[in-house]
């Protein structure tokens, strides 16, 4: 029964061996802002931060998280990136958007003024089928307003 630190709070989670962090977040803790679109680490919709580093929570086993701090979109709702994504229309259906914003938050934390190339490199692991990419780039370029 691992204890997890999620968005600054401690949760005791009863999870069978093999359960993923994404399943724990969504099914046990009701944190459904983290989406699952492929469940095998190919699309990035489930991205969360572990100690500030973006990971695919759908292929992260919950028993392997240990004492690393988990940050989900629920803790980033007031992040200026949210406003930037909305302002620039960097979302359409929105299913991949929380994962995009989580990835972007790690990028701007490390590099507040990323170049176009840096944005494209950092965000290439988050698929968006609606094709919001140009506006995602615009949102990240202008996240500080």
């Amino acid at each position, binding site marked *: 029964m691992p204890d997890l630190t999620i968005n600054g709070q401690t949760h005791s989670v009863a999870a069978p061996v093999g359960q993923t962090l994404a399943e724990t977040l*969504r*099914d046990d803790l*009701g944190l*459904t*802002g*983290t*989406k*699952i*679109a*492929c*469940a*095998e680490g*190919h*699309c990035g*919709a489930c991205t969360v931060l572990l100690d500030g580093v973006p990971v695919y929570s759908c292929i992260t086993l919950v028993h392997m998280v240990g004492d690393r701090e988990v940050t*989900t*979109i*629920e803790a980033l*709702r007031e992040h200026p990136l*949210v406003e930037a*994504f*909305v*302002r620039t*229309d960097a*979302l*359409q*259906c*929105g*299913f*991949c*958007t*929380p994962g995009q*914003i989580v990835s972007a938050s790690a990028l701007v934390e490390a590099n507040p003024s990323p170049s176009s190339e840096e*944005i*494209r*490199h950092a*965000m*290439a*692991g*988050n*698929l*968006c*089928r*609606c*094709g*919001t*990419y*140009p*506006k*995602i*780039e615009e949102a990240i370029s202008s996240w500080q307003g």
Partner: protein
Amino acid sequence: MARLIRTEKEVEGRYEDVWLVVEEDALEQWPAGPREIVGREAPRKTGPLRARGEARYTADIRLPGMLHAAVLRSPHAHARVQKISFEKALAAAGVRAAVGPGDVDALTDEPGYQGQAVAAIAADTFRQAVAALELVEVEWDVREPLLDPEEAVRRGQLVGETSHYERGDVERALAEADVVVEAEYRTQTVLHSSMETHQSICEWRDDTLDVYISTQFIWGIRDEVARKLGVAPDKVRVVCEFMGGGFGSKNGAGDHTYIAAELAKRTGRPVRCALTRREENLAAGNRNATIQRLTAAARSDGTLVALTGDFVNATGWDGWAASTDGPMRMLYDCENIRTTLSPAKLNTPPMKAFRAPGFVEGTFGLECLLDELAAKLDIDPLELRRLNYANSTDDRPYSSKNLMECYKRAEPHWQRRNDVRARSEGPWKRGVGLASQVWYGGGGPPSYAWVRVGSDGRATVITAMQDIGTGTATAMAQIAAEELGLPLDRVDIVLGDSARGPYASISAGSSTTPSMGPAVRAAAADAARQIVEIAAQRHDKEERVLSLAGGKVVSSDGGSWAIEEVVDLLDDAQILGKGARGPNPTGMQVLTFGVQVAEVAVDVETGEIRVERVAAIHDVGRVINPLGASSQVEGGIIQGIGHTLSEDRLLDPASGLTLNQTLDAYKLPTIADVPEIVTELLDIPDEHLTNLGSKGLGEPPIVPTAAAIANAIRDATGADVRSLPITREEMLRALDEARKKEKRGAPAAV
């Protein structure tokens, strides 16, 4: 007054006659150009909910006591179930019910493609359901699959029948032509790849069925499910508040919904049935592959005299014949045209509508052929298109057509080509190509909306439509706000629930805005009229001197009252306006048009292709929200780039099994693949179409992209690329072929 009419209804190029009750559609169109709110950029109203992870998609719904279904899908492309036993599966941990062939129409014992549903298990958790599937014992009789579309046509194995179209005298025109070009084009099978997979949760409450479903057509699901289950439509409630992408694949209820409904009935509990990504890549539909044998004939001055096309659609086990021949019949002024279209029935997953079905594929063939003709005639490709501009392609006039203006606006982008070519260096060759677009997008009735105005001075648009990510909810709020003279932040929209609003149209065929928008405007106008009537009586004014603007009822002879002050007279009672979509103009073709200009760089040593810039100029009538509209254009082009360069559902040619069921193997575009995209929308209202003059924009932007890129590649390299996707391998093959042709003395390109 309600009026009963019979009218023609079009969705994605398929027409039907329907009876409708419409209200009088008496509103004059607004003058062209941006208004206070309509025609101006508005961030989408649901943006914060979606971005913050608060939007509740079907995937996020958890009902008390909910069971999870897992579906046993055929592991063979063609097989028969000899025997099936659930004995061991039913004894497994957590399992609550099992259904097999015969229990639900959606389950078969004679699967015709890999992935067709055969049986399903409901269990307490999805993992338990999946584990139990392993215990279902099946004896298969595996049969030979038919996978070659041309062989299917030879055998007469079709979904429907071969359609024939002819106008003029093609043989004579071909004989008299100065120049004839013939070519065979091929397009591949492409997967919708919606981020939210197809899924439903069904719950029976007494004799009412609640269906939570990721869908593009709430009201259609209500109707379809009621019909198939033999219950009254009003006993089916369909909910889809947020939807994670569909692109045409979520127009129907799908097997998963019927499986969930039956398992829910048997267990007395809500049942969720959600496709995994691998199931999605097998069984959620696709854009079918095509083979196109085309001919274009012209006089030496460039006048097109004949077009012919024999089209084979690799439709799959089921589906319909998307109009791959449509662009050939509709884009140019050409008197002599002959087409055949054969939808091949194969042991492959069924096609479903995918963003301008048929026209994306057919435009690739036709618009590449036009460039091959232009090269042979030594005429500028843009000029050739102008020379053959159609003012009508049948006896019906266009409700509006501004393609010539699109061509004019394309000129500065087209004129860049000398500079672009000059930037070729080393193995990197650069070039520019263009392609035209024709598609539907007029929408139609029936569609209804209500607008409620309360004493808080806020308005709510209520309609059982869905916003599938295209931003239509925001566009509807803008229309209502404009008509009511309210700021946009005082207008909300309630949608996504068949029990909470009137009938709304499907979100397919680029139809949501042109179908729903006029109904919303009519409803807002009805509410506005009531507010004016109340104000007139309260303040002893004539109605004709009153109007709504800036959140106020304004009198032209002085005086104004805040809307909330007027409506507050009613206390908690509210104004309710009702609106209906009127019919489309009788006897007219309602179409969208456009042109795209693509710039590419090709490494002729490695075959790598980079799309560097796409300019998109489209004529879709009045634009409600330029911000959301530009997003639609970008999204269409990016999907078009995937279609052109990287996406390909691969089948094992012997077994018919899908080789790339995962998102690492099926190559979607990423942010790193995106070029500079320039969007220009003409924003000219269609004066004949509804009280808005707006057409749809969801599909037009993906239509010309593949041909524009392929034509740019030909411009850059001289190689004929006639088969999608243009992978490095295909590019190198085409370059090699061009070199061989050049050696034989025929110039490969101008």
